[in-house]
């Protein structure tokens, strides 16, 4: 297991430090987690916090962090008030910066940035909306979206923003 202090520093700089430092490894998060109930070898919240806290690189390189559904059960039960979902999101942001992102997630993000929505308006939906007397909601403000995201998108792609 490779320990990388700079990874730990990076994690602590993106979330409020107490999220990690207050965890005393009781494992309540893991007990109430619906995904961990399916398979501890696929998803283990307590271990993810432990690895993040030590700065073990495997935590951002492994597929495990992508299996949190963000259901927030653990957040409601944690005796220390640790927000595990916030840790997961920080780890995923770091993994993405390092070029690791599930393929289908990339497709969805591109679709939102390009068109404003996850789904296109199909002919069927257009007919259904017309039939029900619902407005078509044609989105014509892609320029606005571009204006607020442009610098950000370039940073993600390795540019200077």
């Amino acid at each position, binding site marked *: 297991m490779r320990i990388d202090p700079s990874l730990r520093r990076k994690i602590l700089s993106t979330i409020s430090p107490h999220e990690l430092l207050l965890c005393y490894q009781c494992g309540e998060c893991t007990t109430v987690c*619906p*995904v961990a109930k*399916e*398979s501890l070898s*696929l*998803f283990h919240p307590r271990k993810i916090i432990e690895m993040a806290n030590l700065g073990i690189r495997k935590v951002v390189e492994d*597929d495990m962090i*992508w*299996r*949190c*559904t*963000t*259901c*927030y*059960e653990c*957040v*409601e*039960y944690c005796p220390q008030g640790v*927000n595990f*979902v916030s840790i*997961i*999101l*920080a780890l*995923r*942001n770091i993994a*993405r910066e390092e070029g690791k*992102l*599930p393929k*289908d*997630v990339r497709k*969805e*993000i591109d679709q*939102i940035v390009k068109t*404003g*929505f*996850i*789904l*296109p*308006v*199909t002919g069927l*939906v257009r007919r*259904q*909306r017309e039939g*029900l*007397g*619902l*407005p078509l*909601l*044609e*989105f*014509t*403000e892609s320029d*606005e*979206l571009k*204006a*607020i*995201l442009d610098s*950000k*998108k370039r940073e*993600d792609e390795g540019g200077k923003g």
Partner: protein
Amino acid sequence: MKTFILYPGCLISRRYPGFEFSALESARIFGIELLHNGSFTCCPDPVWMRSYNRDMWLRIAARNIAIAEEDATSLVTLCNGCFESLKSAHYLLKKDEKTRDSINQVLKKIGKEFKGRIEVKHLVQIFYEDIGEDAIRKKVVSPLEGLRFAVHPGCHLMRPSEEMEFDDPRNPVILEKLVRALGADVLDYEDKTACCGLPIFNSDRELSLSLAQKKINLLKDKVQGIVVSCPSCFMQFETVQTLKREEGGNPLPVYYYFELAALALGVEPEKIGLKNHRVNAEIIVEEIGK
């Protein structure tokens, strides 16, 4: 007539327009008008956009909230995902001045500003808090008597409780109270709060579906349907049954709460669109009024 700004979201407006229609019609019966606005984008997706880049997520969400603020009325969502995304952004922007200032610098480029003047609500919340169970009961013309449902409130209707401030995060009861107000019976069951699994469909399909399958197996043959307040949970519970991963037993119909409300409140069943479900859902129409 009370008016709110409608935030329809991607899945409802672009895959399940029948849900949108049912929600609008049900609200109108109680003198509530939900107004469309063509400027909104995806909320955006609280799971993947936030996993990809939290700052991008916040910029897009803040723009949507700022649009609604121009009309100074609550922003009403029809989906748990949109509810959490927008409400979480709203919470963060209100609480943290530094974040708010930096987001407002970005919004300035398009002539918008987050002021924090309005609230973000789910239509379920409007039905429970603004209308109330008694008023709903009084307007029901086709009570769903003789039908028994299980509710799946879905995670982001009430969690994280610090941000959502709605219902009990460990033992939610509001959705089932609203189903009872339509005349139906509701089954209480263990694991009511367990996630449908949809949020990890894009990263681990098998694991995602096994979460949904577990719930379907638990409820199958015990109730006439499972009631949700979120189109993502709806899609997931239908998908897992359409794939027929397991043989045997009757399929379990899935209903979006406002389809049932519209049905009980007297909206024409054909218009609600139960025929568009992938798992036969029209079966209850014959039961009603027997």
